[in-house]
């Protein structure tokens, strides 16, 4: 069943898939993570050279000016190949926050070249909602004082800069903070999906040019960021889900028990059929969410939330089933399928949970 891609999109997908197939080996990835290298600078440079980092950057700033559909193509491949570099993290922060800031002209080319790696820092340990940060940005005689802490920043250890969501006197603010700046105290930790996570404490004074957005534009950017993050995390989940299904189908064809391949048992065949049905339904909804975003459809935000709900539900059930149908081997670290399961699990709560997405979906009237 075709996915209705343009010629450019097909070229992007084919080239990216070829690269990752050749250069993103699962066993090398495992060894690298075991050595504590969660993000490979050579890979990031290669991503930059292939134009992936310029994808969400407008053409006038040296980018490719592509849309959500193209970003989703890469996100899906990140899921399929278990990419640990922060690609959807950087794309969302770049597109939705930096790309609409006053500083876009100076910052975007640096992002496209791979020199500046931005990741949004939103979650906090003690706050009622992710949308109401306790981290504050206050104007002082010396400049802008950022005070607070951000937690569990996925792949945060790979960032050069954080786009920090803070509360200011004028409403929400997005602040660009170099992770190496004085007054930033970071704690790194490995995460279950093979990434380098990070907690950060901020107590520093910044020049005004570090404030990317403030007030209503900052709130709008938060909404745009979350909508894009929901769609791209759904796409990455989809890639991992499809890969988990494919791995399961291949394995059950080879694994012989009771004198016949597991795939010959009808009880297992029907479970795999369900996995396929649900994966394809999810794919349709995610592509629709991308197209809705790219055509500025009135229901774009609603489609993104629907995609997030569906992808999260299906990703969880398919990856759990993938482990069950494999049997014991899937519970070992050296076998790939459990890693799809872990990445899918990480994405479930990244930026937005299924429950949050469902609640927001219900509050949005269709056009």
């Amino acid at each position, binding site marked *: 069943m*075709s996915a209705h891609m343009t010629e450019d999109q097909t070229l992007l997908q084919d080239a990216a898939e070829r690269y990752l197939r050749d250069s993103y080996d699962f066993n090398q990835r495992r060894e690298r993570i075991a050595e504590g290298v969660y993000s490979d600078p050579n890979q990031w440079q290669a991503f930059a050279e292939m134009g992936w980092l310029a994808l969400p950057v407008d053409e006038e700033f040296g980018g490719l000016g592509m849309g959500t559909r193209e970003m989703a193509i890469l996100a899906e491949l990140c899921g399929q190949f278990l990419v640990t570099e922060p690609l959807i993290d950087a794309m969302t922060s770049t597109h939705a926050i930096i790309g609409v800031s006053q500083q876009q002209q100076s910052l975007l080319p640096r992002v496209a070249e791979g020199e500046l790696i931005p990741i949004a820092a939103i979650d906090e340990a003690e706050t009622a909602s992710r949308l109401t940060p306790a981290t504050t940005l206050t104007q002082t005689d010396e400049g802008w004082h950022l005070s607070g802490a951000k937690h569990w920043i996925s792949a945060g250890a790979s960032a050069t800069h954080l786009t920090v969501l803070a509360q200011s006197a004028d409403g929400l603010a997005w602040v660009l903070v170099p992770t190496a700046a004085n007054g930033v105290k970071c704690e790194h930790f490995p995460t279950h999906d093979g990434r380098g996570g990070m907690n950060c404490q901020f107590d520093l004074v910044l020049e005004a040019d570090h404030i990317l957005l403030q007030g209503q534009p900052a709130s709008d950017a938060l909404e745009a960021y979350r909508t894009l993050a929901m769609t791209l995390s759904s796409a990455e989940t989809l890639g991992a889900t499809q890969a988990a299904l494919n791995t399961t189908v291949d394995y059950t064809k080879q694994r012989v028990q009771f004198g016949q391949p597991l795939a010959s048992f009808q009880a297992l065949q029907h479970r795999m059929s369900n996995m396929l049905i649900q994966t394809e339904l999810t794919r349709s*909804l995610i*592509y629709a969410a991308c*197209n809705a975003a790219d055509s500025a459809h009135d229901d774009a935000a609603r489609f993104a939330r629907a995609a997030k709900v569906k992808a999260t539900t299906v990703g969880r059930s398919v990856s759990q089933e993938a482990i069950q149908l494999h049997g014991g081997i899937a519970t070992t670290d050296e076998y790939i399928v459990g890693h799809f399961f872990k990445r899918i699990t990480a994405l479930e709560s990244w930026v937005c949970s299924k429950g949050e997405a469902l609640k927001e979906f*219900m509050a949005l009237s269709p056009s």
Partner: protein
Amino acid sequence: MFSSAEHWTERIRTVNASNPIPTDHETFRASIRAFLKEALTPELVRAGERTTSVFSDFEAGRRWQSILHAKGWGAPEWPMEHGGTGWDIQQRYIFLEECKLANAPNPVMMGIQMLGPMLMHFGTEAQKTQFLPGIISGDDVWCQGYSEPGSGSDLASLKTTADLDGDEYVVNGTKIWTSMAHHSNWIFCLVRTDKNVKPQAGISFLLIDMATPGITVAPFSSLDGEVEQCQVFFENVRVPAANLLGEEHQGWTVAKYLLEFERGGQHFTIELKKQLGKLQRAMANPNSRAVDDPTYAYRVAETEIDVMALEQTELRIKGSLSAGDNSGALSSLVKVSGTELGQRCAELLIEAAGQSAMPWQSEVLAPDYTGDTAAPTESVTTMAEYINSRATTIYGGTAEIQRGIIAKHVLGL
């Protein structure tokens, strides 16, 4: 948050994120709507509203088919030369959608949807001339004689025989689950013409006049108490050999062709979106049991998301078909999801209706009934719909058969 019925009628029109319907199609939609407003009598609308299975009240459906035929819209899916409308795929979708929204009754469609395409592909010129006009006008009512008491999912094991005797076949055996046979004057049948080859290779496709001596029709009630299903008995029924469709022993190929024709032509989401509208109304109704259920709105929202996913999948399939990609068991995927989602909607609806769905008043289902009811009409039809929805994952190839097709043809298991 949960808005009025009118809002929902608007809402359940096609939401297509990738391909908004072009404006000239909106003109088309308006013309369909205007026609429906004029042509649908209150009684026909009641027949549509009180439809609780695939079939509406038989006479109402038949009347509606003759109205459509007079307008030239008797079989929009058919090619122009046989009376089709020449509408594109989107216009045909709009037509179905508007008919559903306006509560038009469903005519018996086995002739138009199933036999018609097979006749056009395999029929002789004489057969086409003889049968197609009666199908499209609704003057002939066709039923489908495939399943037998011993041959359900394993259809190829069917035992009804047809032995050639001169220029006639002599048919003996029985068919079951023959929907609407008691209203039909023709039946298309799969019969065994060769017992000495593998099962699929010995089957032929016969067109049989129900008035032929030796045919007995025994209707029986479904779980909701309504009579739609029949068993048909054949005892030395003599059928002209000229009524063979396709080559002798090629009946399996003829029947399989229909699957190709159907592929991608299924529109479960039109009906499902109508169900979603009912769910929204149930939530807005202060007397509904949904108001006592804190999980209800969430379950409806998740169901709506699943319907959106199916709708986008149906659109993807249509796109694939027009791009010439006819591979994969796509119709199986859509059938499984569409029917299971319909069942979920039906479950949610009886939950909202609560005990008000329990009165069993089959007279209320008649379109000319305007008397008292023990509960609101919508509640009375809700339970019948729920009960009948269990059949949807059984007929037309069970959900298990569909999953088997997906396992074999998509996953290669």
